[in-house]
Structures are given as structure tokens and as C-alpha cells.
């Protein structure tokens, strides 16, 4: 892309963002304070929440939940997926069930988790885990399925140790698929995070949204949504960057 075209692109983008901001502001002022908070008011509220510390408190609480659930699902999803890459019988036996669970909306299990585990931190972590683990597992198994058996046979012919087989064949082959799953799981885990904070014990950004909605505090609702959106964009960009960086050989593996 030429420099001129790129500059033109940035100009259009900033015009678009400016127009969006203006529309938001005008809509907020004309539709009525009960429906839309203008951009300016939203930003002022966001700054106010940041100054009072409420925002950082909610953010930290939500991020702790996200991190715990997501780390757990990456650990379980990737290691179990790798195991299935090696143990063919186990993979064949379980892959249909993994696909079914991946297509099942895990949100449906929240009421059961609530009634069995109550209002602790652990059930919320379980919700995030259930939302995130199946995309990871599903994609990792997809990678495991497409490992060419020649690769393993060659490694065996050279009397590769089990350890070397995992390190040099299985892990590099399956990792790009796992990373695709991890990237998809970020979005699901965020949904799980907010859902858990809504429907299990209220905490973090979910609680901030919930209580703002109950008091019809529209500016705080918009501020919290803006914050959640920025969080989502940052995490997804991070996931995409890691995937691009670590999965560069993916297309060569085919």
C-alpha cells in the first residue's frame, strides 16, 4: 500500500471516528437522558469512576476472575488436547463429544452451577472455564487430527524418545491450532466473565453494570460498557498478535 493511500485511510478512519463521536453526543442529547448518555457525559463519568477508585477495583476483580478461568482453560484445554494428539484411540472416542460440548451454549449450565456451588469465587471461575475451554480443546483436537502419521512414524524410525517426540513434533504441529482456539476463547471467556458476575455473586464490572441499571444510572452503564469493550479489544488484539507471532509456520505444515 502506498504512503498516500495509507494516509488517506487514516484520514477516513479519523473522520469516521469523529462522525461517530458526534452522532453519539447528539443522540445522547436529543433522545433523552433515560436512553443514551452522551459521549461527553460518559467520559466524565468514566474519569469520575477512575478517580474514586471504583473503576480500578471493579476492573481488578473482573480481571482476576478472567485470568483464573482463562488460565485454567488454557492449561486443561492445551494439555488434554496434546494428550489426544498422541493417544489416537482416546481422541477417536472423545472427539465427537468435544464437538458437541463446543456447540452447546454453556450459559445454560449457570443455574445448575449456582444451585450446586453457591456464591463463591470458585463457581464463577468454573463458568469462565466452561465458556473458554471447549473452543481451545476443539481446535487443538482439530490440529491433532490433521497430524500426518508419517511425521510420527519418521520420528519413531529415528528412535526418538517420547519426550523429543512431544517437543519436536506434536507441540509445534498442534500449537498453531491451539492458538486459534485460544483466540476464539478470549471472546467467550469475556462473555462468561460478565455472565458469571451477573448471575452468580455480583462482583467487578458485571456488578457495576447491574447496579447502575437498577438505579437507571445511564452514564455509568455506558461508562462500564465502554470499559468492557476496550478490555475486549485489548485482549483480542493481544490474542491475535500472539497467534500471528507464534503460528507463522502454520500454513507450511499442511
Amino acid at each position, binding site marked *: 500500500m502506498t504512503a498516500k493511500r495509507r494516509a488517506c485511510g487514516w484520514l477516513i478512519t479519523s473522520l469516521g471516528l469523529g462522525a461517530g463521536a458526534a452522532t453519539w453526543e447528539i443522540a445522547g442529547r436529543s433522545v433523552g437522558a433515560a436512553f443514551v448518555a452522551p459521549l461527553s457525559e460518559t467520559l466524565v463519568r468514566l474519569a469520575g469512576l477512575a478517580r474514586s477508585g471504583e473503576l480500578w477495583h471493579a476492573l481488578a476483580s473482573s480481571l482476576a476472575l478472567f485470568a483464573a478461568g482463562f488460565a485454567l482453560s488454557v492449561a486443561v484445554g492445551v494439555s488434554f488436547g496434546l494428550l489426544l494428539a498422541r493417544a489416537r484411540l482416546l481422541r477417536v472416542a472423545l472427539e465427537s463429544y468435544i464437538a458437541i460440548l463446543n456447540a452447546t451454549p*454453556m450459559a445454560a449450565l449457570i*443455574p445448575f452451577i449456582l444451585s450446586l456451588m453457591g456464591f463463591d469465587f470458585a463457581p464463577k471461575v468454573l463458568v469462565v472455564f466452561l465458556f473458554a475451554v471447549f473452543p481451545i480443546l476443539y481446535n487443538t483436537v482439530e490440529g491433532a487430527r490433521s497430524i500426518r502419521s508419517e511425521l510420527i512414524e519418521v520420528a519413531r524410525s529415528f528412535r526418538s524418545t517420547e519426550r523429543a517426540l512431544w517437543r519436536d513434533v506434536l507441540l509445534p504441529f498442534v500449537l498453531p491450532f491451539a492458538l486459534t482456539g485460544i483466540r476464539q476463547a478470549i471472546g467467550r471467556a469475556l462473555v462468561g466473565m460478565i455472565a458469571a458476575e451477573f448471575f452468580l455473586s455480583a462482583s467487578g464490572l458485571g456488578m457495576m453494570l447491574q447496579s447502575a441499571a437498577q438505579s437507571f444510572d445511564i452514564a455509568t*452503564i455506558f461508562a462500564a460498557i465502554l470499559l468492557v469493550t476496550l478490555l475486549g479489544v485489548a485482549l483480542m488484539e493481544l490474542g491475535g498478535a500472539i497467534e500471528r507471532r507464534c503460528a507463522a509456520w502454520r500454513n507450511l505444515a499442511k
Partner: protein
Amino acid sequence: MTSESRPLTLAPGWGAALLTSTAAAKLGAGALLLGIWETGVRAWAPAYVARPTGVIAVLPSVLGSGAFLSAAAATLGSVIEGLGIALLLGIAMGIAMGRSFVVDRLLRYYVFGLFAMPMVAILPLITLWFGYTDGARLATTVFAAFFSIVLNAADGARAVPLEYLEVGRCFRARRLRVLVDIVLPASMPYLLAGIRLAAARALIGAVVAEFFISVNGLGFFILFNSRSFRHNQAIVAVLVLAGGGVGFEALVNWVTRRYFPWYRRDEKPR
């Protein structure tokens, strides 16, 4: 489906044996998982907790009840309706973004931002705008599905081979015809991958919306029954939701294999 990594040096007759052993492994694993569930619940959990035999026992009465059927129709109907709306608008917007530099630069941050935003977060806002109604649930499913369709349609429209467009131009095809007859079919595989993800998101959106706004549907059915300690009944609704998710995915996979056999699944669904 990617190719099975199975050695090709088997003697004739082995294929069938392998196939039956595969089915046996699947069924065996399923039976084992159900067995673990059943014994685990019997041994450690209170009596109201769902277990396979309990679910089977209540299955006919739940599936026969009008309340359950209307709940299933409401949820699945709103998912299909939401997907339909998201599909129509999303394809138009995605293709515009994929083919027009200006549109792409104008909208890319909005689309990606709203795609990255967990749709659950706007439920409080949706209830303020739409009230505690069916409309709120529909809005949630549309919102959940729309942006992944736009992103994938745009990726697909961007990936249309240049030769196709040049041929179109050589034949002096009109712009609309190029879009409908070249760009749309060529971006279909990406679009189908997007629809698969969109359907999953719409289903989650519908269930969570029903929890939040307590409108008749499978999510509310689950909430209501699990609160009154009828977990077996509630699990039936989970099974129907799972069936919906799996059925839709199977449909999309079938369409992909049947009509776009050249497409590799791992190309880049978002």
C-alpha cells in the same frame, strides 16, 4: 473434515474393522461418561441433582408438555430470526467493507470493537431500550450474531481472487452483478465459517437474555426448574439447546462440504 491420519497400508477388510472399532470406542466412551455421571451423582450429590436415568425418566413428560414446547419454539425461533436479520444486514455491510476501501476505513474500528465487546454487557441497556420483552431477546441475538458475520463476510470479500473480478470487468458486468454473481459466491466459505460462530454466539445470547429478562424460553425454563430443584427437567432443555447448536453446525458443515468442497476449514474463521 481434514484427512484422517491413518496408515494406508492396511489389508482389505481392515477398513470395516477399524470403522466398527471407532464406533465402539465412541459408544464405549459415551457409556463410560454417562456411567461416571450417574454413579458420581448417586454417591455424592443431593437427590435433586440431575443424573442420566432421572433425565430419561422425565424425558417423555417434559417433551410432551406444552410449556416446554412453547419455550423451545420461542428460543430457537428467536435465534433463527436473529440470525436471519444479522445475516441480511451483515452480508451487505461485510461485502461493502471488503470491496470498498472507504467503507472499510470508516467502519473497521466500530465493527471490531463491537465484535470484541461481550454481548452480555449490553443486556442492561437493551432492557432499558426494549423493556422486558421478546424484542429484547431478539435484539440480543441479532447483536451477538451480526459482527462476526460482518467480519467474516469482509474477509471473504477481500479474498476474492483478482482474476475473477478482471473477467467480470472484461465482460463489462455491472457492479451489482459482480457483487451478486462473483463476490458473494467467492466469499461464501468465509461467510459460512462466520455463520457457524454467529450461531453459537446467538444461542448463548438468547439463553443469557432469557436469564436476564425472564421471558418465556429454554433459558428461563432452565432457570425456573433448577430453582425449584427439578434439575432433571431442566437438563432436558440443555439437551435441546445442545441439539440446536450441533444441528446448526452440522447443517453449515454439510452446506460447506456439498457446495464448497474446495474450501479448507482452517482458513481463518474469526
